[in-house]
Every structure is written in structure tokens, then in C-alpha cells.
């Protein structure tokens, strides 16, 4: 027994092992006393390492010092506390992330299941009954005071609206969308109501509901107003994350002030955005997105955002405000490039911009005609010749400019497609139909421009081209228009022949 102890204590020379052994040592006081009872207990010396004192015979085993017995226990306790601390922090974090996703009460869950059951193929799509169940689910949620902004709550509401729509009760559906819309809008506007990191997602939902409610909506003016409000909100969100967008606004401001100052032509700096510089290709020649361009500020709602902007453009057109539509679309195209939208979308937007320019040109031409007619009807009545000519010149200049820009837009799309083999020869193969559609639309647009100029042969050729393209890509709307225009052209051609 003693021998073993001696053996053990020799090992204690190794300092690094010492503490380890200490904790493993059965720390019975009597046991230690056995080893140390040669020395007086009161002496302070007993802690000293014996082998450090000269005069001690070399082979003498060193005595393990008496360490306070509490120390291993203390050590353990410390470890325990730190573990408890860490797990507490972990729990808190976990709870924090968990609490965001509010669970739907069990009672509501079972009603919800029944609603799905009624809605499904098993019950032969019984929407009427399903709607009732969904309404009951929502009531249950209300009773449990669920957060009306939470995912599940809004899901049920959307489901109710969908059921209303399916049962053809459109007014009710619309009013649910309105409520959701105003709730999101309010939440987004009240600071602190939505966690900052979730704003993007909420905005996305808001925009989706906005687009949906506008589809049912009949009133143009109120729709326009609402679109503006929500678009502005989304724009603020993007602006708060994108220094690039701020730069864009500053540049535009500068440009505007420059125009005012020098009164020079603001038009030469119009440029199109469909080019190799803005659209990236992979090594096989297909259009892809640029991973290096940082467009994260536009995420996650960029698609909804641009759809809403397009809708706004359409609404502006509906209220005959072509100028507003035009400026909105010009900005849209530029922003789409900034946001790194899918290439097909950019192409289509550019082609659409061309159409808008053409519309503006036609409107100016109508104005011109109006002016001329006015002069004819009232030849010498208080009409100042100077101002008249000035106005005429101004309008004409603007019209030519618009036509030129429309030409530029269409041309940029067409020549871009021609430059790139993969698009040129495999239009039908493109994954995104909007690529082919934008090319067809541009070809058609060029035809319209030629017809406008009176170059009938060219127009005819272009229309025919666009008809084949539209047929290939099932672009039926364009097909109808192109055929009509082609007919017009041939009629004109015949008339011309007769004349000559």
C-alpha cells in the first residue's frame, strides 16, 4: 500500500500531470495524513517541494502538498456554471428565433385541416363548405389573438379570398385584399412594428397583394394612387440599402438642373441598355445573370416591384398620361439593369419603351395636326405667327426626337439579337419566352415605324418577319396586330400603284 503510494507520488514530479492526478486522487484526509505525519502540522513548510531543498537525499519521494480540498470541487462548479451560462444563452437565442414563428392554436389547426379536406379532390372541391371552415379557422385564430401579420394568419385570409373568388363573390374577395393591403401598409409605415430584417419579405407580400387587388380593381385613379404609395415605400426600402440608387437620384438631379441652366437639348444623352455591357453571357453564349454585380438591395421583391411599376405605366397610359408613362418606363429600364433582372425582362422592357416613344410621337403628331387645323379654320384671328411657328417647330422637333428614340430602342434589341448567335439562330430554344417576344415586338415596331415613314416595302417585310416570329412563340396578341398592319400596308401599296 505504502509502496504504491510512493510510486504514485514519484510521478507527481511531472507537473503537468499533477493537477490531473490530484483530481483523481481519493482525497481522504486520513490518507494524506498518513504520508505527512512526520512534519508538524502547523509548519508552513509542508507546502514546499522537498526536492528543492538541498540536503534532501536524492531518492526521497517528494511529498504531495496539501492542497485545499475544495479546489477540484470548485473547479467543477466553475465548469458547471459556465455550462449553465452557455446553455442559457443558447436557449435564449433559440427561443428568440422560435418566438418569431408564432404557432397556430391547435383548435384552429384541426378546423384548418377540415377546410383543406373540403377543398381537396376528396370532397370534390367543395369550396362553399371549405370557405366556411376557413372562416371558422380565422375566428379561432382571432380568439387566440394571433398576430394578424403572421404568416399563418395571412395565409388563412388569402385562402378565404381565394375561396370567395372561386365562388365568384368578387366584392368580398376584394375587400379582404384591401384589408390586407392596408394592414401591411400601416405596419410598414409605423416604425418598430416590423423587424427591420423582415421588411423585405413584408414588402414583397404587400406588393403581391397590391398587384392582385389591382387586377380586380375597376377604378383607375384610386388604383394609380395606391400604386404610387406602395411603390414609393418599396423605393425607400431599396434606397436605404443601395448607395447606387442614391447615386442615380443625385445624377438625375444634377442633370435636371443642368438642363435648366443651359437650356440645352437633354436628348443626346438618351441611351439604350440592351448591350453586352449590361447583359452577361456564359461560355456557351447563353444569357445569364452576373454574379459579381451586387443587386442585393433589390431583393427579395424586385420582380413584384417591376411588375407594379409596369402596371403603373399601364395605368398612366389608361389615363392618357403618356409623358408620365414614358418617364416611368425609362427609369424602369435603367433600374432593371441595376437590379440585374433576368435578361429577357430587360429586352422586353427596352422594346416596350420603344413602343411608348412611338405612342408619344403619334400624340405629338396629333397635336401638330390639331395646330394646323386650327390655323386653317381661323386663319387670321389673333394667332401670332411667331409663336405659332415656334410652337410648330417645337412640337415637330419633339416628335422627330421621339421617333428617333423609338427607332433606337427597337434597333438595340434587334441588333443585340443579331450579334449573338445563340439568340439569332435559336430564338425558339430560349428558356425565357420574353426574349423571343421582345425580338418579335421590336421587329414589329420597326415595321410600324417604317409604315409611319411611308417606306412600304420595308414595312411589309418587317411585318411578315414579325408574323413568323409571333407564330413560333405563340405571341398571339402581336400576331393579330401584325396581320392587321400588314393588311394596311398592302392596301396602301395598292393605292400607291393606282396613283402612279
Amino acid at each position, binding site marked *: 500500500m505504502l509502496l504504491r503510494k510512493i510510486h504514485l507520488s514519484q510521478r507527481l514530479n511531472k507537473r503537468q500531470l499533477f493537477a490531473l492526478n490530484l483530481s483523481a486522487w481519493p482525497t481522504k484526509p486520513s490518507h494524506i495524513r498518513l504520508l505527512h505525519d512526520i512534519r508538524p502540522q502547523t509548519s508552513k513548510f509542508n507546502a514546499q517541494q522537498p526536492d528543492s531543498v538541498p540536503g534532501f537525499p536524492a531518492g526521497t519521494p517528494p511529498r504531495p502538498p496539501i492542497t485545499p480540498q475544495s479546489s477540484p470541487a470548485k473547479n467543477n462548479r466553475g465548469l458547471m456554471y459556465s455550462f449553465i451560462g452557455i446553455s442559457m444563452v443558447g436557449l435564449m437565442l433559440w427561443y428568440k428565433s422560435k418566438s418569431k414563428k408564432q404557432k397556430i392554436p391547435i383548435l384552429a389547426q384541426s378546423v384548418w385541416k377540415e377546410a383543406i379536406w373540403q377543398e381537396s379532390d376528396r370532397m370534390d*372541391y367543395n369550396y362553399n363548405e371549405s370557405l366556411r371552415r376557413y372562416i371558422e379557422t380565422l375566428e379561432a385564430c382571432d380568439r387566440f389573438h394571433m398576430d394578424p401579420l403572421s404568416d399563418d394568419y395571412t395565409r388563412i385570409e388569402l385562402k378565404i379570398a381565394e375561396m370567395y373568388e372561386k365562388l365568384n363573390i368578387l366584392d368580398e374577395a376584394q375587400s379582404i385584399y384591401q384589408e390586407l393591403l392596408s394592414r401591411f401598409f400601416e405596419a410598414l409605415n409605423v416604425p418598430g412594428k416590423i423587424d427591420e430584417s423582415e421588411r423585405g419579405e413584408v414588402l414583397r407580400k404587400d406588393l403581391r397583394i397590391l398587384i392582385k387587388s389591382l387586377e380586380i380593381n375597376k377604378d383607375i385613379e384610386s388604383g394609380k394612387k395606391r400604386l404610387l404609395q406602395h411603390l414609393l415605400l418599396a423605393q425607400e426600402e431599396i434606397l436605404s440599402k443601395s448607395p447606387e440608387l442614391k447615386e442615380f437620384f443625385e445624377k438625375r438631379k444634377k442633370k435636371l438642373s443642368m438642363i435648366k441652366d443651359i437650356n440645352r437639348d437633354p436628348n443626346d444623352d438618351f441611351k439604350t441598355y440592351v448591350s453586352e455591357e449590361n447583359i452577361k453571357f456564359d461560355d456557351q453564349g447563353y444569357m445569364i445573370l452576373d454574379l459579381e454585380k451586387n443587386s442585393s438591395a433589390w431583393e427579395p421583391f424586385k420582380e413584384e416591384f417591376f411588375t407594379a411599376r409596369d402596371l403603373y405605366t*399601364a395605368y398612366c397610359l389608361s389615363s392618357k398620361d403618356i409623358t408620365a408613362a414614358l418617364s416611368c418606363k425609362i427609369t424602369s429600364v435603367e433600374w432593371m439593369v441595376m437590379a440585374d433582372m433576368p435578361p429577357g425582362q430587360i429586352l422586353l422592357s427596352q422594346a416596350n419603351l420603344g413602343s411608348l416613344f412611338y405612342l408619344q410621337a403619334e400624340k405629338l403628331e396629333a397635336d401638330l395636326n390639331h395646330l394646323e387645323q386650327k390655323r386653317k379654320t381661323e386663319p387670321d384671328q389673333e394667332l401670332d405667327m411667331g409663336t405659332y411657328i415656334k410652337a410648330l417647330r417645337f412640337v415637330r422637333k419633339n416628335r422627330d426626337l421621339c421617333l428617333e428614340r423609338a427607332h433606337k430602342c427597337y434597333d438595340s434589341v434587334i441588333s443585340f439579337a443579331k450579334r449573338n448567335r445563340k439568340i439569332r439562330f435559336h430564338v425558339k430554344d430560349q428558356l425565357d419566352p420574353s426574349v423571343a417576344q421582345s425580338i418579335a415586338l421590336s421587329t414589329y415596331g420597326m415595321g410600324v415605324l417604317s409604315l409611319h415613314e411611308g417606306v412600304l416595302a420595308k414595312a411589309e417585310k418587317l411585318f411578315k418577319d414579325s408574323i413568323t416570329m409571333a407564330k413560333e412563340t405563340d405571341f398571339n396578341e402581336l400576331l393579330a396586330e401584325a396581320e392587321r398592319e400588314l393588311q394596311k400596308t398592302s392596301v396602301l401599296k395598292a393605292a400607291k400603284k393606282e396613283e402612279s
Partner: protein
Amino acid sequence: MQHHTTRSGPKNGKIDHVRSIILTANWPHFNSRTLARNLPSSATTEMAVYTPPSDTNSNPDHPHSQEEHDKDDNDIKKFYLRPSLGLKLWGPLVPAPDNLSGLYTLVAVQSAVGIFALWRLKRLYRLPPLRRTATHTKSELAFGELPSEMIVKGKTTIRKDIADFPTLNRFSTTHGDIVLAPPPIIPRQTRFITFRKLVWGLFGSLLLSQSLLELTRLNFLKYDPWCDEMKSVRDKKFFNNIVKYYHEGIDPTKIKVKDAMNGTPLSTNIPEVKQSVALARAQVEAQNPIIRWFGPLEYKPMSFNEYLNRMEFHLDMFEFFQNKRNIRENSIELINSISQSSAGLEDLSECKKLHLQNVEKRLHFLASSKDATPAPEKRRTNTMLSRGVVLPHDTNAPQDIDLDTIRSLYDPWMTLALETSLSIKFIPTTMPSHTKTPTTTDSPGPGPTPKAITNEKTH
């Protein structure tokens, strides 16, 4: 893909020259959101089941895998370290900034190592002092250091009252000072221990402080440019992959496409099938553990400077907008408090009013339909509006339904996204021009010819 056409939209929208505006839901109008919903949407018409090639293991040297291998080699060349604040020590192992579980794992491991280091340090302190004055109670000195009075002329001495040495010669002349010949090994050991303590201490505190830094980033930052960037890069890569796989086409020897409904094999040249397969392949790639950990390999994160700039910019702008909103809110409250006299419904916000209205309407519906006890109305025509819910075969009662799967498969938000994905086209038509076309029989008479807007929606 079926094209369902509904006509809706502004009815009184009449324009002079716009002949038609067409809204079309362009379905492969990608981005992760659209893509995600593409697959289920195609389920109604033809659900293409993607069966990954089962024989990939048996013939590992088929050209595709080789090609990928080459590609990987290229990618490794331009692999950029993933950014982080406190995990820099991990070098190339740092996960993508949006990979939260990965980041937390590394932080946990790092903290554990840090705690271990500090524990080692603490243990070194715990060690019984090698040569120290007999008091083991409290010492101001670091372990291994000798009190200054013990060093005499470069030699280590121990100043001790001789009376404390019970076994020594009381008549010794060296009363007080005991000169020790320093053993050759021990000072080196003490120096070594100091060094070790220093290393453990520095190492442990460095690791822990780094972990803390990273934890703060993960938990207290509301806006993290790196994370946002990574998310958008993942989306873009997903899109690019779909384009790639779509054009790569399907090798019929590797992939079999079957109709989900009846299991008949489909031709692999149908665009819809190609789309679905490309989508599935892109999804498989996105699920690849390496990609999930690191994100797209060729992604180059923004520099730390830019990170800081963006953060600062965001903080400024956010505060600015928040203030603006606060002011607006306050002014609204002020107006409300002024016009408080008109109590009742008008006091409520628009949202609350609408809510009350809707609740009433719903109650009304419940009451009316209960009275009528309606026979199950089948409106099959309307099911075309969006796909109906098809339950799995083994559900026999409402309570068998797995709410989570149904909710993710038929997420109303997804359905809404699908419905609101429009592509708007403006198609111009020539106006019967007054100057160039004096007489045309076909076209309408001169002057602005209003035509209704056609909003066409296909999905």
C-alpha cells in the same frame, strides 16, 4: 403548359393610340420564387418526375462527371475566402455568410476551444508553486516567478528563518540566507511555463473574443450586407444553372421522365419537360452540401471596406426614413386628437374599419350558408383559376392531413405570387395618318381612335 386567359382590368381605360396592352404571365420568368412555383404549377398539366440517374455510381467516368470535375478544378482556382468578422482563423473553411447553422457551429467549436485554452491556463495557475516562499496562500507573483528578494547576485536564494527548518543544523553560519545552486532544468521549465501560460491565455482570449464578435454580428445586426449579397448570389446562380441545364438538354440514357399521373414515359424534348428537369437539376445542385456550406463557389464577396460603407449608408438612410415616418405618424395623431369629437368608427384607422367590415361579411356568409344548408356545389369550371388541392392517397380523414406539407405545397402566398407574375407588353399600331394615307377603306376614320386596353393574363 396551358394558357388560361382571363380578361380583366381597367374597363374604361381608353387610349388614343395604344391598341392593346397585353399582360401575360410569363411563366419561366425565373428567380427562385417563380421557379419554386413552376414545378408545382406544371403538376396540373404534366408533372415531370425527375429520377436522378441511378447508375451514376456504376459508371463514374461518364463525360458529365468528368466535365464537372474539370469545372471544379477551375472553380478552385478562383475560390475566394468567405468573409466573416470573427471566424477568420478558419481560413477557407468559413461558410457562406447566410449559412447560419454553419456559422453557429463554427462559433460553437471556436468558443469551446477558447474555453479549453483558458481552462488550461487556469490549471497552470492551480499547479503547486515549484519554488515559492512557503506560503501557498496568496502570492502577488505569477507562477514560476521568484520573489525579488530571493535573487542575490544572480543566484537564487531563499531567505528563511533558520528556525523554520527543524531538521537543519541550528549552528550553521549561513543564518538567514540559504544559497541554492539553481538546478539546471528547473529555470528552463519555469520559463517554459510562463511561455505556455502566455500562449494559452492569448489563444483562449483571442478565440473567445472572436466568437463574441461573430455572435454579435449574427444576432444584433439587422442588416448584414454580406448575408444579403450571398442570398442574391445564390438566387442568381440558381437561375444560371437552370439556363445551363436547360440548354444542355436531357440525356435520355441518364434521366427518365415519367408522367406523375399514370407513369408513362414522356419524351425528353418537350420544353416543359426540359424546364422541369433543368429546375430539378438546379435544385439538386443547390442542395449539394458543399454549395450549401460555401454558396456558389465562384462568388466573390465584397471587401470589408465596402461592407462597412454599405452598413453605414444603410444606418444613415434608415434613420432618415424612420424619422420621416415618425413625423408623419405624429402629425396623423395630432390631427386625430384635434378631431376627437367625432367618436366611433371614424376614429379607427382604415385598416381597422376594413377589418370590422370583413368580419361582418364573413359572419353573414356563415349565417346565410347555414340557413341554406347548401348542397355541395361543384364549380369545376372555376378550378381552372388555380390548381385544386390533391391530397395524397393515404389520407382518409381530415385529421390525417399533414398540415405542414400541405401548407408548403399549396402555400397561398405562392399561389398569389403565381397569379401576380405578369409581363406587360405595349403594342403600338399606326394611326391612320392624315398626311400619308388620304383614303384607306379598312382603317377607322381619321382622328384618334380609342381602343380598349386588353389585359391578358396567362398562367
